[in-house]
């Protein structure tokens, strides 16, 4: 057993998968988490996990899964990673089955699969309506076993504050904060993995859990790590309105036949059941005959926005539509969707087996995250031994799961996140172990003062926070930030509003200085942490808003009507491949294309040339007085395996 160790921050699916795999490889792991890892946000995932196992004999394959993923992401995802992930997906599902996940079964006893958005295949394995919970528990159990065997040490109720960097800027440990005693100290680690999940709390109310503040990744950004594609925030079409949280109504409800509709008559005051079939507008089915209710999320969210805001057809004139499952029997619904229907019933008091649900779009997932690297092979797969895999731009600091940025491009397909989380955790582990075995200087041998300095720095910051005695309540200020983001950096983005938002964020930043730390005690006091997290959320909201402002195009979840290329209704994406082929061969025959198509393709091609790039935010410290902010640049995307083309789902 090596004396060296890796620190994993976060015990969601990604963190636990990495911990378990590294322990298998004999590496000691210190697992640090905000709360008991079994309570991580991953438990919220309902619908399922994708893998082209082709149980239904539909001819599905990992390559089709790969294609759907890249197309779903509007070609902004890194293709070798997606390809490697999709090719490992059937194995990952089998592995999770072996580890005890109670996946639903077919009559013959095989794993059952359902449909999800953005694909035409039954590719999503599921365990009732709590797939994320079940996957997380299986990994949690493996890690608990390693804990008993002494390879894994868990520190729950600890918060990651920042990386410890040695004089060469290499990460050699982490500064952590004991959330009970309040103690701040440094832990040595030869590598540190941030598996800290997404940042939904920047928007206040979202489908995310309370700890999803993005604070750990933002801290890495503030220490110099690059942040990728921040502006790509997924809005899920179907959430349940709520005061504290916008609880998700999983895409699986539509995967199992749920139909989305609004009354054809604006402001129809009748109850949904009083509205006869022909007076219902099944707008997704009508507008997208092929994918219907299972269009990808970016498309679904925009259509709901359009029908409610532009057509004024929302239920009761509000931003709400019906999601209807009442054509199924209770028995069917309880078996396939029990858990999520219970959530709806519990929190709204309405039985969705009897009444159509009322749903609306909500912030759900961040495609963007901390920038990470990888090493590809000739065949366009990933070299699993490479220490570069999942490494951030800070040597020795890694990221995995929703915290990273490279798998989902401009829009994530449903049920691909659980996959990417487990995949990254497993895939990166051999490379991290290789890195640790070859570090120039083991953490053990790094001079002690590197650690004491880092701790002292954070101890000072926290004691400053505790002394804050202004008149802003941090929780109230957070609500304001969230309102601003929800109003202006959501589905439809306009440059004037984004500019105003950036000014507003600066204002919040100034008001942050005037916070009152409403609890200054030493024991189990969450307030100073929250004040620090709020600072990070303000910094992260700048990354999101500035990235959105500068990206003058419409791609995936990032919709700017002003820059919509307006694909002609009768256009076929294959035409574009032909066009590109002719162009590359130097024999473009313009007259072979309809003029409107030709014009569109030229615009599409020019737009890709300019914008088919990763947004990179790098922190630039402010000059005296100002706090600094993101500098935005752009990087090439590996698109060598599937040629980018216009998306189409009808």
């Amino acid at each position, binding site marked *: 057993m090596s004396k060296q160790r890796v620190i994993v921050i976060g015990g969601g699916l990604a963190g636990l998968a990495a911990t378990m795999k590294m322990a298998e490889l004999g590496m000691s792991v210190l697992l640090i988490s905000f709360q008991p890892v079994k309570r991580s946000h991953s438990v919220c995932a309902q619908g399922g996990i994708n893998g082209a196992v082709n149980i239904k004999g539909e001819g599905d394959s990992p390559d089709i899964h790969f294609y759907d993923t890249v197309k779903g992401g509007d070609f902004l995802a890194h293709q070798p990673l997606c390809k490697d992930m999709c090719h490992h997906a059937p194995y990952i599902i089998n592995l999770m089955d*072996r580890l005890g996940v*109670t996946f639903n079964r077919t009559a013959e006893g095989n794993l059952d699969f359902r449909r999800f958005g953005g694909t035409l295949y039954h590719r999503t394995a599921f365990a009732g309506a709590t797939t994320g919970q079940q996957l997380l528990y299986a990994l949690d159990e493996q890690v608990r076993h390693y804990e008993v065997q002494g390879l894994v040490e868990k520190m729950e109720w600890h918060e990651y504050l920042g990386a410890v960097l040695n004089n060469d800027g290499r990460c050699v440990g982490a500064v952590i904060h004991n959330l009970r005693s309040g103690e701040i100290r440094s832990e040595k680690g030869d590598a540190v993995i941030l598996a800290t999940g997404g940042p939904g709390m920047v928007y206040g109310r979202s489908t995310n859990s309370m700890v999803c503040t993005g604070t750990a990744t933002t801290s890495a950004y503030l220490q110099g790590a690059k942040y990728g594609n921040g502006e790509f925030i997924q809005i899920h079409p179907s959430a349940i309105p709520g005061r504290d949280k916008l*609880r998700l109504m999983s895409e699986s409800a539509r995967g199992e036949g749920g139909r989305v509709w609004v009354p054809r008559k604006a402001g129809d005051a009748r109850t949904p059941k009083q509205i006869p079939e022909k007076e219902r507008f099944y707008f997704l089915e009508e507008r997208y005959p092929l994918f219907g209710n299972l269009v990808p999320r970016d498309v679904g969210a925009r259509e709901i926005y359009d029908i409610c805001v532009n057509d004024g057809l929302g239920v009761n004139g509000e931003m709400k539509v019906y999601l209807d499952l009442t054509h199924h029997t209770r028995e069917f619904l309880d078996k396939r969707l029990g858990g999520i229907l219970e959530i709806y019933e519990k*929190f709204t008091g309405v039985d969705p087996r009897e009444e159509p649900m009322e749903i609306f779009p909500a912030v759900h997932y961040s495609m963007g995250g901390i920038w990470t690297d990888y090493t590809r092979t000739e065949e366009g797969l990933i070299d699993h031994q490479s220490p570069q895999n999942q490494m951030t731009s800070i040597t020795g600091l890694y990221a995995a799961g929703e915290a990273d940025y490279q798998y989902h491009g401009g829009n994530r397909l449903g049920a691909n996140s659980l996959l990417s989380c487990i995949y990254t955790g497993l895939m990166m582990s051999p490379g991290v172990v290789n890195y640790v075995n070859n570090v120039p200087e083991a953490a053990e041998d790094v001079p002690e003062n590197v650690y004491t300095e880092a701790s002292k720095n954070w101890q000072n910051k926290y004691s400053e926070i505790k002394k804050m005695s202004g008149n802003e*309540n941090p929780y109230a200020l957070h609500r304001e930030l969230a309102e601003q983001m929800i109003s202006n950096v959501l589905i439809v983005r306009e440059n004037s509003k984004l500019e105003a938002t950036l000014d507003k964020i600066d204002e919040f930043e100034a008001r942050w200085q005037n916070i009152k730390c*409403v609890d200054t005690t030493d*024991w189990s006091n969450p307030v100073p942490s929250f004040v620090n997290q709020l600072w990070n959320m303000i910094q992260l909201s700048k990354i999101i808003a500035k990235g959105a402002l500068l990206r003058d195009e419409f791609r995936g979840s990032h919709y700017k009507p002003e820059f919509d290329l307006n694909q002609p209704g009768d256009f076929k994406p294959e035409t574009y491949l032909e066009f590109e082929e002719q162009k590359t061969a130097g024999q473009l025959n313009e007259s072979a294309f309809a003029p409107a198509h030709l014009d569109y393709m030229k615009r599409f091609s020019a737009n890709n040339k300019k914008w088919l790039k990763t947004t990179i935010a790098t922190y630039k410290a402010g000059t005296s007085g100002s706090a600094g902010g993101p500098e935005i640049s752009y990087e090439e995307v590996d698109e060598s395996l599937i040629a980018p083309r216009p998306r189409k789902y009808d």
Partner: protein
Amino acid sequence: MPDTVTFKIKRQDSESSKSYWETFVIPYIPNSNVISCLMDIQANPENSKGEQVTPVVWECNCLEEVCGSCTMVINGKVRQSCSALVDQLEKPITLEPMSKFPVVRDLAVDRSRMFAALKKVKAWVTADGYHDLGPGDRLPPNHQEVAYKLSECMTCGCCVEACPQYNLENNFVGAAAISQSRLFNMHPTAKNIADERLDTLMQEGGIADCGNAQNCVEACPKSIPLTESIAEMGRQVSGKLWRNIFKA
């Protein structure tokens, strides 16, 4: 509609300090649950006497009754605070920490004993490795239905809070851990170490501590059939006892 809601909250500043009650009167907002009200208190931590006090400390994460964090005793009944809708609760609303665990602060308690119990009953599959070993066993759908129900346990603590046999002084593993041992003893490969789980349940703090009061099953928010699990594990333990006698 009332204009305000009154909360009586049992608070405690640290593990060893004495508890005290504090009252908060907050504006009534439709569709609130207990957690959204605790958040309102955070945003304006003023008690009913008009004093600025520290915000109440509690645990939560998912806000949709699936992580198990936010368990507390609400109007005398143990349950999740995220799914406790204010409109359905009698007023004033009283909040207390669970009594079967050491209090950390206010409504937050230390449930590490429950996680330790999962170690005791070896609640895991012993895997040969995480490389590609092909698919797991085929299993009939009705096996999945039973196992799925058991595996929904979110270690929330309602069952043990309600159990007359579980207390701060003894070392009873509690209904949740017993039910988990049933789950793993029915798994096609985890059952390879079924006997080791039964050994744990035969020791002090094991299944013999259960007095069959059945409070646990009533309290479980996930409707896990705990008494069925206890009965099943009771049978497995007696079976093992008999086998031990014949071996001797």
